């Protein structure tokens, strides 16, 4: 047997469909007070019939008094027990009998009528003195008055209404200097700013080669007919095992032109020349022992043809030495700047948040950081173990007020909240996300496009006061009908206390009507 909890507005069709959808052979329907099913006993009979057709056993549970009456009648009828208790046959005024079967002319009914008789009653005669009668009447009247004043009936209604989930998302703008306006979906925004200083030290990741250059002398040979001056700084190359070492002249000098030698008497037709030559002081172009080469090594004069000029170490090059040390790289400088910006931005966000009002929100991603001063303690390439950046920045952020967002949503809610409902405050979640700086959206320290998503519930637009107005002065039956008719109602409880015969009406004084609305 499966329990099915019905709601007030579940009508006979929806309940039949629920029963059909169940796999269990037994179904117990829990019918709430004021259910539409109790508007007509035929609803219950039809439920039984359809359950029987589906091969299911159906039972009913309810707190509704009228419903309990109907179920009693239904059970009596089913049991074949005193069917006449509620059949129209019993009532003499409607003992309709079609005579059509016997007399076609009289398809009209023949009916009998009996005026109901009241049982005879007599009241016992009691002799009272008029004086005592009057006193008793006054006492009774006073007691009744006191009773009514102190224990005047109070009506209590507890209504439980269903809430429906609602999720809506809208894009709005937050603009500095703007007013909150539902037509443009804009809320006002303000800019907060703060100044911060900080420094960061980064370990040097560069390396630098330091040491001494090898020194010696180089002879340059001139094989041309003109003298040639070589200035200090001119370079010559020494190639060995695929590497080239450069040597730099450390003095300026001129190399004389070649000279023709005296003819050889044996071979007068042969002309020979002697190259002009000059020794220059020189050193290795870089530090290191590689430049310590011995004398007699051939060198190329950079920028000159070997057929015109050539060089040779005139002495051993000595004294060349080197070592690798840490130095500041460009990347170290960049890293320090980036890290300090992040640190300052993070600190700035924290600082700005500490300045926010209780209802004020900082829009993430809207921070703008403007450096005012910045200094590094080393240059790139400096031999150093670390580099330190010290910076002062101004940080600005865009803020909005949550109340403005909620106010705008309330005004926009006409578009997505069905008539007769309002947004519930229960479990309301409002998520605001900046859309960022893209082709279609803006995110700066003065303006932002925001995606606002509201997850909440909508509930029937009823208030305790409205219900009191509707109930005041009504009969119990009318009051229950009014309560049962409330849109999206799940269940209700209604009572009048104390229960005084002939005073079963809701008080007209609304202070004596107590209404609570629970929104599930």
């Amino acid at each position: 047997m499966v329990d099915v909890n019905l709601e007030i507005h579940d009508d006979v069709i929806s309940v039949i469909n629920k029963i059909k959808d169940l796999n269990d052979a037994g179904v117990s329907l829990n019918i709430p007070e004021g259910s539409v099913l109790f508007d007509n006993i035929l609803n219950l009979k039809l439920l039984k019939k359809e359950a029987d057709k589906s091969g299911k056993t159906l039972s009913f549970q309810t707190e509704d008094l009228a419903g309990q009456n109907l179920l009693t009648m239904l059970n009596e009828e089913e049991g074949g027990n005193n069917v006449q208790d509620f059949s129209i046959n019993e009532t003499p005024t409607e003992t309709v009998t079609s005579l059509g079967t016997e007399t076609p002319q009289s398809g009209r009914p023949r009916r009998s009528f009996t005026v109901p008789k009241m049982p005879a009653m007599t009241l016992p005669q009691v002799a009272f003195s008029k004086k005592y009668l009057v006193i008793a009447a006054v006492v009774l009247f006073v007691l009744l008055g006191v009773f009514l004043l102190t224990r005047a009936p109070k009506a209590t209604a507890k209504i439980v209404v269903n809430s429906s989930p609602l999720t809506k998302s809208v894009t709005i703008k937050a603009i500095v200097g703007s007013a909150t306006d539902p037509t443009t979906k804009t809320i006002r925004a303000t800019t907060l700013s703060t100044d911060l200083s900080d420094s960061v030290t980064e370990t040097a990741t560069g390396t630098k080669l330091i040491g001494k250059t090898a020194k010696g002398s180089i002879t340059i040979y001139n094989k041309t007919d003109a003298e040639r001056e070589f200035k200090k700084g001119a370079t010559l190359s020494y190639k060995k095992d695929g590497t080239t070492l450069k040597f730099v002249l450390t003095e300026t000098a001129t190399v004389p032109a070649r000279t023709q030698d005296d003819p050889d008497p044996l071979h007068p037709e042969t002309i020979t020349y002697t190259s002009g030559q000059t020794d220059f002081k020189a050193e290795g172009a870089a530090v290191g022992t590689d430049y310590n080469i011995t004398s007699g090594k051939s060198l190329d004069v950079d920028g000159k043809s070997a057929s015109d000029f050539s060089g040779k170490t005139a002495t051993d090059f000595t004294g060349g030495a080197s070592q690798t040390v840490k130095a500041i790289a460009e990347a170290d400088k960049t890293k320090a700047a980036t890290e300090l910006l992040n640190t300052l931005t993070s600190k700035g966000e924290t600082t700005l948040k500490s300045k926010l009002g209780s209802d004020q929100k900082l829009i993430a991603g809207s921070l703008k950081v403007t450096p005012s001063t910045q200094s590094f303690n080393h240059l790139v390439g400096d031999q150093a173990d670390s580099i330190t950046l010290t910076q002062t920045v101004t940080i600005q952020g865009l803020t909005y007020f949550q109340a403005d967002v909620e106010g705008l949503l309330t005004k926009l809610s006409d578009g997505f909240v069905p008539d007769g409902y309002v947004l519930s405050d229960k479990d309301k979640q409002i998520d605001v996300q900046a859309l960022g700086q893209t082709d279609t959206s803006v995110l700066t320290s003065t303006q932002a496009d925001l995606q606002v998503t509201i997850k909440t519930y909508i509930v029937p637009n009823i208030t305790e006061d409205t219900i009191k107005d509707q109930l005041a002065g009504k009969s119990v039956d009318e009051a229950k009908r009014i309560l049962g008719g409330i849109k999206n109602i799940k269940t209700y409880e209604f009572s009048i206390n104390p229960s005084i015969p002939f005073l079963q009406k809701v008080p007209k004084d609304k202070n004596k009507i107590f209404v609570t609305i629970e929104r599930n």
Partner: protein
Amino acid sequence: MLNLPFGLNKSSDPFKFLTIDISADSAKCLAFYNENGVNKIIGVGKQAMEQNAIRSGSIVEYDQVEQAVEDAVMQATEDLEERSHQTIIGVSGDMCLGHMTTARVVRGTGAPVTQKELAELSKKIIDSSFAEANNKIAQITGNSDIELELITSTPVYTKLDEKLTNQAVGVSAETVELAIYAAFSPTYHVRNLQRLSKKLGLNLIAIGSEMYALISVLKKVKTKHLDCIIMDIGSDTTDIGIVFGGGIVSTRTLSIGGKHFTEMVSQKMGITYKEADNVKKSYALGKLTKSESLIVQSSLQDVLDIWLDGIELTFGEFTGVKTFSPNIYLVGGSSQLPDIMELVSKEPWTHSIPFKNPPEFYKIGLDELTSITDATGRAATPDFVLPASLSGIYDELRGGQNG
């Protein structure tokens, strides 16, 4: 002569009047002009209402209903000059309990029947009818605290010594038999309708049973002693009325109507209620393609089966009726659904019900009600038959001179 607890008030033009029908999905208003005994429709108004504004005929969302009625009245009267309109409001479903009560008195004397004697008998019949109505509503709702109010009472026939007569006073007879139809409505509903009329500036001359009104105009077309069954398939209920000898013997209401058909189309096709309503109407008018029609047809199948089971059960509620007339008239907005006629005509559901002969079903259209003409051409749909029939109450209020 129809007796109503309101009365025909004086109006600027006594030949113009409004009828209003408030159903679960809409308020409908027709403006009439009584011309030479024929009630001519000169204005038509219909305003849709949200679901659940009406529950089983009872007003739940008063403001919505008032607005819908006001809009419907505005539409129907936009071309009329009068501001104060004589108005008849119809009630049906669970808001209207009507039945015929008959008293047969053996006088023991052959003296002429007096007016006073008939009046006393009428009063006793209505008192008894009232008691019966209270019993009936308790049986239907399980609630014996619902206060009822008489909204309609009218003699159906008078017999002297077993012979029908139109003039009983002054005629000698041993027995007098008098049948009176009386309709009752819950007091809170009557108050709501009165409040609504007052608010809208309507001159409410009657709150009447729609079933009774339909019979009154139908009798002019068929026969005065009509034997039939009326099946009114309304928005959220189906009313069944048993008519013998031109009088409504009893009515019962099944809480299933067009709204449920629409809801099922909405659920099965995954469309909104409003869209489903449009689809259903197009289907009823044969405007859908064959494949579309098949989808709607299959969507309706389950709910129509339940409806038919409910109809069978409802007939079982008329325990005092030994045989039913085989003439069944279908009326109401959903009667135009082709499946309804097919279902009731072919299904073997009637086998368990004691019909005098195999039943035959007929739809009632406005064109069959010869005492009513539609000068607007806008009231031809079945949902306007009952509001139009309320003009029959106007005729009876004016002394039956029109028919």
